[in-house]
């Protein structure tokens, strides 16, 4: 965007919203909203603390494991659904139900099944992320240029070679799109899992800060979390743009 002939860098509007936050904070409208400057100061304090680092480690661990399973199971499942009518008919209703279902309601059930621990949180993150990854991989495979498939077939590709050398790469832009949205949902899953268990990671920190009315600490953790989720999403969006020509029609 251009303002008074000066080219503004991306996300300049964040500065305005930051200012609005600062002003509202200074006006002491609510104890719930401390000034942004105070939050930032606290942020650096909090980042250095062992409690934060432990929470970050636990969250990152659960997040990475959850995303790993969602990708490792989701992509092959989606590709299989896109290629095989029978598997598609069997699984598609479930994928669609789980995609739109309020998964948070399932978390207590997971706790009963898998216990109050890391395992439940990882499964929650996987459950949040996997469905959109499956659907996108499926859509990606279904839109592959027909003549690419015929090409692989006419040169005698084995099913595995066709999968690993053609289908996967031709569907990669859509697959990455799914992974990007899935990763954002996994962040939600991890935090919701931790909050409902409220003994580990950022969930424990949120609980601690909110219960003691440490709003500056609370917001500092929120800002860190948002920034992390946003960076991961932008990185994946960048990768997605890099490979978008893989889906070219010719």
């Amino acid at each position, binding site marked *: 965007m251009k303002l008074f002939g000066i080219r503004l860098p991306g996300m300049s509007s964040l500065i305005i919203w930051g200012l609005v936050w600062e002003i509202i904070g200074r006006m002491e409208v609510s104890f719930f909203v401390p000034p942004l400057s105070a939050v930032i100061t606290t942020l650096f304090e909090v980042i250095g603390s062992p409690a934060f680092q432990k929470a970050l480690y636990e969250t990152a661990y659960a997040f990475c494991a959850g995303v790993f399973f969602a990708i490792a199971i989701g992509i092959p499942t989606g590709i299989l659904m896109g290629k095989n009518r029978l598997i598609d008919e069997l699984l598609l209703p479930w994928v669609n139900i789980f995609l739109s279902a309020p998964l948070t309601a399932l978390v207590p059930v997971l706790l009963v099944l898998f216990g109050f621990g890391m395992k439940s949180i990882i499964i929650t993150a996987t459950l949040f992320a996997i469905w959109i990854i499956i659907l996108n991989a499926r859509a990606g495979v279904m839109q592959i*240029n027909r*003549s*690419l498939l*015929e*090409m*692989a*077939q*006419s*040169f*005698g*590709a*084995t099913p595995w*070679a066709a999968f690993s*050398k*053609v289908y996967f*790469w*031709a569907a*990669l832009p859509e697959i990455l799109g799914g992974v990007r949205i899935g990763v954002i949902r996994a962040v939600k899953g991890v935090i919701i899992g931790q909050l409902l268990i409220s003994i580990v990671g950022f969930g424990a920190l949120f609980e601690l800060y909110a219960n003691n009315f440490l709003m500056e600490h609370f917001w500092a953790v929120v800002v860190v979390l948002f920034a992390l989720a946003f960076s991961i999403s932008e990185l994946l969006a960048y990768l997605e743009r890099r*490979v978008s*020509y*893989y*889906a*070219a*029609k*010719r």
Partner: protein
Amino acid sequence: MAMPQTNHAMDQSSPVTQDIAVSAHNVSKNYGPVEALKDLTLEFPRGQLTSLLGPSGCGKTTLLKIIAGLLEPTAGEVQVDGKAVTGPGPDRAFVFQDFALLPWASVIRNVAFGLELRGIAKTEREDIAEKYIKDVGLSGFEKSFPHELSGGMRQRVGLARALSVDADVLLMDEPFSAVDEQTRRKFQEDLLALVANENKTFIFVTHSIEEAVYVSDQIAILLPRPSRVSDIIRPTGLREKDSHSIRRDPEYLDIVDEIWDSLRTYVE
């Protein structure tokens, strides 16, 4: 049908003296209630280029894909070297109308892809690919990607890929229809040289009458709904001419006119 002024072989029942590389016997293909091909019989002489020519919807691409083993005929049989076709095989290579290149692979990997699928070692297949990249005139573009090339260059990659697997039969599905007119003319000249130099059987689908007459040893005219071979034309004197004077040759002009006469009633 109008009598031609020239003396090329017109008689469909005349015995073919050449060695037959590919033959289709009573091939039918139905898509549900639609008859795309009906009881089609056609022979393709070895080492020659046969065009399948006809208005759109006449099933010429369907026939080509049946020969390739990509489609199964509803009835009838295709034989390559006397053996019935049951699926794609190393004796046939396909050149696609829309090139069908891997957008994420370099030119050399695309050209070597047929060999890669056959499990040829990387250095060996790249040596072979290198040779055919040079043959089609793309030296220096080995590391380029398809989206960096023009349409004509992309089809050269597709052609090099089909040549590099060294199949006896080359199946070309309107290979020059997606490139511009100048490039197409250059392609047609190059194709004549290719037919003369490579001992391969070419089966060439086109909807351009001029293109078919220019490049073919034998032209099979297909008529639609349902498709059958209405005529087979074998230009006799054009092969000896050099590529520049063919378009001015009386035989060339007569055949083009004659084919148009027989096809015009099928064009809306």
